């Protein structure tokens, strides 16, 4: 059957076009009446005009981060689901995003990141890495879906509480109010500096996760069969933990914990990739980028001030979808 790889390429191409269109739309939407063509021309010619400034310093970082954060959430959601063979594994649901937020909060509000800029993504990375490793240990001990989700709920609550505590202890009077950013996520007023801090980590994370595609395919048959097919499962787990920690940790460090993208997107994409966990990775990354870009365009078009947090929109889309999904999903079945 040579048809399916071809149609897979078509799917990836379609998603790429979709992401590109949404990237342009994201750059086009904002609070000032920017003439995009003129802005791009100015920027390309190196003219330091106002439109070029708004484009380069405000619109582009926001669009790039939207795509990169969404890609990170989508691809890691797909990887965690494949690795744990659990359709509910998602960085948000299982507490990885929350732990990343805690790490980033500690790094940011207690001055580590002002002394050393990389401390911000590294803080997120450490939080995400520790929680992913903890969950995989649990999953490795044969914990079922219910145990894993309950552990994730506990981990989310704990890291949420510790985040709130850290924010209350933080010296800045504004810190306590900013818990919403960390728990809901937002892309407003991000700068190219944030892109430079986070994107390299995310890219390495994606690369690590993408190398596990065939192992995740093999894991469809369970760990023993996958191991007998020659896949080093310990290394596969480390790659997914490391990749998730880097992609989600860096995402959360600059955009907060945006929920539901990593959960919903792999489910949406699965039928289009013949349910192959390996092929799901790239497709979910691209679809995650599209969803996050779309949601971020929506928060700017919805006339609320201050802007809605991104996680509000993704949850508004994601939660009802998720509930509908539960009707078709035997979580503890088989």
């Amino acid at each position, binding site marked *: 059957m040579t048809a399916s790889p071809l149609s897979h390429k078509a799917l990836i191409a379609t998603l790429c076009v979709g992401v590109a269109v949404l990237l342009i739309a994201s750059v*086009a939407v904002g609070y000032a009446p920017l003439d995009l063509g003129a802005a791009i021309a100015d920027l390309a010619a190196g003219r330091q005009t106002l439109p070029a400034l*708004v484009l380069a310093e405000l619109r582009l970082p926001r669009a790039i981060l939207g795509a990169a954060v969404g890609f990170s959430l989508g691809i890691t959601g797909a990887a965690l689901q494949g690795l744990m063979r659990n359709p509910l594994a998602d960085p948000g649901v299982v507490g990885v995003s929350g732990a990343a937020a805690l790490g980033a909060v500690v790094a940011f509000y207690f001055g580590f990141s002002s002394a050393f800029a990389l401390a911000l993504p590294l803080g997120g990375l450490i939080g995400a890495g520790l929680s992913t490793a903890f969950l995989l240990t649990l999953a490795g001990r044969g914990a079922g879906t219910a145990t894993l989700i309950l552990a994730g709920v506990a981990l989310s609550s704990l890291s949420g509480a510790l985040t709130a505590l850290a924010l209350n202890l*933080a010296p*800045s009077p*504004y810190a306590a109010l900013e818990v919403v950013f960390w728990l809901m996520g937002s892309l407003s007023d991000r700068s190219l500096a944030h892109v430079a801090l986070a994107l390299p980590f995310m890219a390495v994370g994606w690369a690590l996760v993408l190398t596990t595609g065939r192992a995740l395919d093999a894991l469809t048959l369970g760990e023993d069969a996958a191991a007998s097919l020659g896949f080093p499962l310990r290394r596969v787990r480390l790659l997914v933990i490391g990749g998730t920690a880097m992609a989600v940790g860096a995402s959360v460090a600059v955009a907060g914990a945006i929920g539901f993208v990593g959960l919903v997107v792999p489910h949406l994409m699965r039928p289009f990739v013949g349910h192959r966990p390996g092929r799901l990775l790239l497709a979910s990354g691209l679809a995650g980028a599209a969803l996050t870009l779309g949601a971020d365009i929506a928060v700017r078009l919805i006339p609320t001030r201050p802007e809605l947090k991104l996680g509000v929109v993704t949850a508004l889309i994601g939660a009802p979808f998720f509930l509908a999904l539960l009707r078709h999903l035997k979580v503890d079945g088989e």
Partner: protein
Amino acid sequence: MKQLAVALVALLFCAGATQAKPARVASLNLCADELVLRLADPGQVASVTFLARDPRSSNVAALARQVPVNRGLAEEIVPLAPDLVIVGAYTTRTTTALLRRLGLEVLELGVPQTLDEAYDQIRLVAARLGTPERGAALVDEMEAAFAHLPAPAAQPPSAIVLRPNGFTAGRGSLPGEVMARAGLDNLAARLATDRLGQLALEEVVWAQPDVLVVNAAPDAPPSLADDLLTHPALAAFRSSGRSVSLPIRLWTCVGPQLAEAAARLAAAADTVAKAATETAAPPPGGPPSAPSRIQTALPTTGEAAR
């Protein structure tokens, strides 16, 4: 709001005439702290808020050090048995209600929107504290300082105030009047719809004010709210000297610091005006002449682009 203030003043003069000079005054609001510490006799103040001791937010940190502090809780105030409690109109509402129920004498201060209202408030508090002469002296001092400001230019430079979290000083705010007296045209009055509107960074950059008044403490501990003020999109303001940093404590409360704020802004306005006459050319690149475009392009805040 203005009527309320007038009514309060009237009420106070009636009350002040009959009431004895209070011996134990407690304050539950930072701006009340500043007035009480400046206007009362040293032994008269029983308690001020803990905020008054923080030099980042308070102009009277030194004075507050000699006075017990509270965190705005009724259980802290009641044991002091104050014969006057001064509160803010928008803070510690629960405590205020409780103190009133317990029969304590409560004076509530609004947020002045003009310098005249600020002067009224000073006179009101001084009269209530039994030190009207100090109030009059403070008002005179401030009026003199404002009178010393250079006359505004015929075409005053435009300015936007940027506070943590993207808040600004909008139409009908005390900072707005201070800016006007300092010779600055507050652009945010045409952008933000209320006194304390929030602006998207993009709106601030796009409006291209001649002066960006940044209300930030350089040594503020890290927060996303303060991070906004150092966003790279604002770098051009800093590098071209069009950004003036003004500690927010200089114009959050009523006091002589308002004149200092005005003096600093007037200096900034002067610098910008001089630079403009030297180059005598419209701002480089980008859209045509800034002011006309802003007025047509950004009439209201509610309008998300497109």
